[in-house]
């Protein structure tokens, strides 16, 4: 899947991932290949993803994620670490 992480100041990540976990407002959830289209608001928490390039994670302070046709777009205002 294609994952894009964007903040107003810059694009933080763009690349292929096999799995991504997001801190949804109602609890953490994982997105795998062929996930149904979803728009979810995020709470403060850890975003983690892994792909061919390895694993990575970051703490975000809320945001919104859209998954559609194996494309994930994550919009966050601020990455805490």
């Amino acid at each position, binding site marked *: 899947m294609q994952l894009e992480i964007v903040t*107003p100041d810059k694009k933080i990540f763009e690349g292929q991932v096999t799995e991504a976990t997001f801190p*949804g407002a109602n609890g953490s959830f994982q997105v795998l290949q062929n996930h149904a289209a979803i728009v979810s608001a995020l709470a403060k928490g850890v975003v983690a993803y892994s792909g061919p390039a390895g694993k990575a994670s970051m703490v975000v302070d809320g945001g919104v994620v859209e998954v559609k046709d194996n494309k994930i777009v994550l919009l966050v205002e601020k990455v805490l670490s």
Partner: protein
Amino acid sequence: MANLKEVKERINSVVSTQQITKAMKMVAAAKLRRAQDKITQMRPYSQKLTGILNNVTASSEGETDVIYAQKREVTRVLLVPVTSDKGLCGAFNSNVLKATKALLAEYATLDVHIMPLGKKAYDAFRRGPHTVIDTFYTVFSDVSFENVNRAASFAMESFVNENFDKVIIVYNQFKNVATQEVMAEQFLPMEQLASEDTKAVETDYILEPSREYIIEELVPAALKIQFFKTVLESNASEHGARMTAMDKATENAGELLKDLRLMYNRSRQAAITNEILEIVAGANALESK
């Protein structure tokens, strides 16, 4: 004929002025590039955000009430003039101030507060008579989303708390490097949620936790990014305006120098001619004795 030494001194002073304006022009050009880069970097976020917002609102039936779009009877207005921190950029600042004053005249009967962004706007309004919110006028020392956001959040919070019924931003819109256009844009209440003419790609989204929650989250985010965009545009416009102003100044200094050099050479020649005349006349007088 003008005094030779005087003219020479003037030439020197114009030359150094020209060097300064030339340097400022180059600095402004570099800063303009950086400011434009910032706009380009912000664009993906803003586009994706409006995209999602459009998708979510398009697949919803019926209107959703958003607190930021609430229209109330206007009695208290917040004006946000966006200028630069420094001068020497042509009519950039005075245009904004003029437009702001026109709005002040228009709202003379209402309770108007001013939240200047940029030192020039602060200097223009700090002596009153309107109440000035002076917490944010230094935003241009660090044009990052986080920093600009503080001003945006303040405006949005005071709108929600009904401290203001209307928020208007006056700023220079970036047309291209050489042109800026002063705009007075209504920031709050928002005019419309999202553009209606979207093709409404009806995807059946799962909405987590709920549509209302997402809209409530997205709308302020969209407003903040709109505010941020305004500040970035004004920032780019400032450097564009300064670049053109300094280019003109360099050009004018060049013209002035041309005239001065002509004058200098003329008076130098005149002085030489005079001297020769005197010597010849003196020699003639001696000979004819």
